[in-house]
């Protein structure tokens, strides 16, 4: 049986309130495929019945599970290889010079899903031992989804996941085979921290030098996206770097960021006019 319009509206409202993600009407089929397993698991006859149970407020856990099922966790290692190369060569290269005094770097992968993005950064750094020797580099991966964060911490990937984007030499070098799975070496896992965090709330404390927020803000409403951009900016050092997903931009979305003219494809905080004036 088809899900009713009313039920779709309720689910979409719930999802947006909790996560900022909007459910496009054209993607309605997704609701159906995403929630089928959930109703089967709980022996609920129809999707409309599921929605009834959620709105009756009797089961908070059920609402959480529905949200989880509706989130898209698609990700892979070195997603958009050239963008990571740009970050490594230009973005991180510049920060290496700028932070030579403190030799400290804080990196935030916001909306990290099951961890591939944060591990990619960690591998990029491990691949340049000469550049980063003696540095203290903190990599934080956060996601709204507790299930995704658990998986990220474990760093255990199926054969299918492990080879998506990951060079085979890295797989051999930094992952241990465990039957049909591959787990990030303890060294790699130790270099990244993961925790649950919702981008609709205040950012993690402390200032970051690099922020990756990729393929997360795509489905946010324009207003919420603008708000989240300014929150992220508030957690970034003046000369920090922002990396978005391929095909994502700050243009027309926020005044907090501008294109990095030295590294097209990366973004920098806009230094506002008063700050520039004060600087003169």
């Amino acid at each position: 049986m088809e899900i009713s319009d009313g039920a779709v509206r309720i689910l979409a409202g719930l999802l947006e309130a909790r996560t900022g993600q909007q459910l496009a009407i054209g993607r309605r089929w997704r609701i159906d495929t995403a929630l089928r397993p959930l109703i089967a698991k709980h022996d609920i006859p129809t999707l409309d019945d599921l929605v009834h149970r959620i709105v009756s407020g009797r089961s908070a856990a059920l609402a959480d599970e529905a949200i989880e099922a509706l989130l898209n966790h698609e990700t892979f290692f070195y997603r958009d290889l050239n963008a990571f190369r740009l970050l490594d060569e230009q973005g991180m290269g510049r920060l290496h010079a700028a932070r030579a005094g403190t030799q400290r770097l804080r990196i935030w992968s916001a909306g990290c899903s099951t961890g591939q993005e944060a591990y990619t950064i960690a591998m990029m750094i491990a691949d340049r031992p000469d550049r980063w020797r003696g540095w203290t580099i903190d990599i934080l991966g956060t996601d709204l989804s507790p299930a995704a964060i658990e998986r990220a911490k474990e760093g255990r990937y199926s054969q299918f996941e492990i080879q998506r984007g990951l060079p085979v030499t890295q797989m051999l070098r930094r992952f241990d085979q465990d039957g049909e799975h591959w787990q990030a070496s303890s060294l790699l896992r130790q270099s990244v921290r993961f925790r649950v965090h919702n981008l609709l709330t205040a950012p993690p404390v402390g200032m970051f030098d690099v922020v990756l927020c990729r393929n997360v803000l795509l489905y946010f409403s324009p207003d919420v996206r603008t708000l989240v951009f300014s929150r992220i900016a508030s957690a970034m050092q003046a000369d920090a770097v922002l990396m978005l997903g391929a095909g994502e931009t700050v243009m027309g979305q926020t005044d907090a960021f501008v294109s990095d003219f030295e590294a097209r494809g990366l973004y920098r905080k806009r230094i506002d006019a008063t700050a520039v004036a004060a600087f003169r």
Partner: protein
Amino acid sequence: MKTCLVVDDSKVIRKVARHILETLEFTVSEAGDGQEALDSCRVSAPDVVLLDWNMPVMSGIEFLRALGQEEFETRPKVIFCTTENGIAHIRAAIDAGADEYVMKPFDRETLESKFQLVGVA
């Protein structure tokens, strides 16, 4: 357009690979074993070879070793593409000169990412 040589003794697998490769805008040719593949590379070297492990006449590893003996203006990149997932197998392929390794099952994104890694996407 980039060229890819699909080497596999299974016609079905060649057909599936061809289909994915064509959506990635490769010009595809096929070979049923390592010897056929070697002959084909001698006539005209592709940009990349998608290589099976187990084949009659000449296996994937034997092909790789033979390819290493050949002179090329630009050496074709080789992506090993097999059901073998043991570390020993993977290492053997890399040591014999493979540039990348793909375990079945894989999808279009995985292949595309491997082509990017070897610089032919």
